[in-house]
């Protein structure tokens, strides 16, 4: 077993969001592809620095909303015209304006559920274990420290060279991430 098979990657710790964005950009320019940044709050500039592609989430939400809309209306229509028709003074059974509130609420409900469940599913959460949690100082990633992890599966990854590269970027600490 080669030593790198137990290695998830190398992680560098930074004190400032600017330093992290700078490091991420430099790492990408250097040719690294498999890496991720960890920060205590969302940093918009990282999307561009790490070349994060736009998420499919809006499409999922749109589809969820459309299913809710059609489903909600169909429910009202089907119940009112087919399974439980009530003839009240000869008014039309498909009284669609009265079905709008329920249709609307179903649209919102399904869209919101698909937004949350879609976000969690695309993020692969819940995920109780992840190698980065093995880094002792990583508990500061949810407080005031910023991390950049270059993964061992990256074609350009070389333990010594990558460590050196990260140290040169002004990281306060560089450590190995083991599985």
């Amino acid at each position, binding site marked *: 077993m080669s030593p790198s098979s137990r290695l998830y990657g190398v992680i560098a710790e930074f004190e400032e969001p600017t330093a992290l964005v700078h490091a991420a950009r430099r790492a990408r320019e250097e040719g690294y592809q498999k890496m991720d940044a960890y920060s205590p709050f969302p940093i918009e500039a990282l999307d561009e620095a790490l070349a994060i592609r736009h998420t499919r989430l809006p499409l999922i939400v749109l589809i969820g909303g459309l299913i809710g809309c059609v489903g909600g209306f169909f429910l009202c229509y089907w119940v009112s015209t087919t399974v439980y028709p009530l003839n009240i003074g000869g008014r039309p059974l498909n009284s669609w304006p009265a079905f709008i509130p329920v249709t609307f*609420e179903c649209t919102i409900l399904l*869209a919101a559920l698909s937004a949350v469940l879609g976000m969690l599913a695309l993020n692969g959460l819940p995920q*109780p274990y992840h190698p980065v949690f093995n880094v002792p100082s990583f*508990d500061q990633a949810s407080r005031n420290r910023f991390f950049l992890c270059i993964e061992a599966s990256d074609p350009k990854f070389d333990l010594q060279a990558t460590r050196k590269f990260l140290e040169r970027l002004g990281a306060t600490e560089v450590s190995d991430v083991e599985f």
Partner: protein
Amino acid sequence: MQDRVQDSVSDSTITPPSVVGAGQTFASVTDKISSIALARRTPMGWFLGAGVSFLLTMLLMYTIGYLVLTGIGIWGNNIPVGWAFDIINFVWWIGIGHAGTLISAILLLLRQQWRTSINRFAEAMTLFAVACAGLFPLLHTGRPWLAYWLFPYPSTMGVWPQFRSPLIWDVFAVSTYATVSALFWFVGLIPDLATLRDRARRKAAKIIYGMLAMGWRGSARHWHRYETAYLLLAGLATPLVVSVHTVVSFDFAVGIIPGWHTTVFPPYFVAGAIYSGFAMVMTLAIPLRKFYGLQDFITMRHLRNMAKIMLATGLIVGYGYMIETFTAWYSANTYEEFMMKNRMTGPYASVYWSLILCNILIPQILWWKKARGNVALLFVVSIVVNVGMWLERFVIIVTSLHRDFLPSSWAMYNPTFWDFSMFVGTIGLFLSLLFLFIRFLPMISIFEMRTILPQAEVHEAAD
């Protein structure tokens, strides 16, 4: 220049006043807010407040027990006033909840940064208010264990709900609202739960927060989807909150009772909901910031802005009252005219005029800048508005019902002890849930507070 300060204009020459106290860092914000939830010792004041709330919750439990065993005859509502405290309290609680969604969703979309330190507990307030609201129609059904009949499902009875009824719209609106509010609140909590997981010392706390945080690690890819989801939820919650109180107002406006059958009801109900909700946020925020020393996070700017929103929505509500009165006269309808005259001079006139005093006259003091800067005064005004909004629902419901079309069926409405114990009990339930929330969860969104610190800005290095 202080007077050029603007809250909403994105003009780089105008600096908005800070929404965080000076000298705060990522670490200090994190430690201050998380320490309240993680502290080993619970402050004595918490036990005192939670104890009183718990006793009131016990009163609610006792009332519900007696109600279920005896029937809703223990309440004072009867024909012609078939809807009384149940609907008053239901609408009052739902309305209070609306400010939470407004703060978290609409102010987010409008890029109002000052919402950040109040959105979390305003959302919690929404959730707990909706829970209290739901109890009233649920128990008013008389047989709450059969409440699932309200939902459409293929039953052996072969009966389905009536989708043309505003009451079934209400079931869909309120249950959707409760679900979406809970989702919004929980999604907002995930990164903060991760913070608590990492900062907790006790094993049990680590495990519980850890399970709730679902392994959140602050990955940039996750944040990207998270922000998208959060924004989409805000966009969905905004029309939802408007629709919920619109549907609540349809419960009245679709009926033909004089005083209910008006088209101004939806906008006027939505404005009233926001009005009472902001009043409740203020009522809760002022003691909280004092007790936990959070003046650096919930600043005077927050209180001033909320006072302005209260003033604005209060004026819309005032417009609603005016239009109601005008329509009653302009309709030339005997029943509408009588209803308005009876409201102003009839047996419940004192309630009507107290409502005008609480909702329209007293809040006008907020026009003065000095008044908006006086915390004690703001607290008093917010309570006055809460009372006023409750009286408004009382006036709408009781005065319209107690004198309807046939004088032979006229009667007065007399609430019983159980009406009051149920109402006070839900206040206890609301406060108990709130006390538990502020003890165990971060009452201010920690990660959003970090984003509004000046250090969070990424400086583009010219390299």
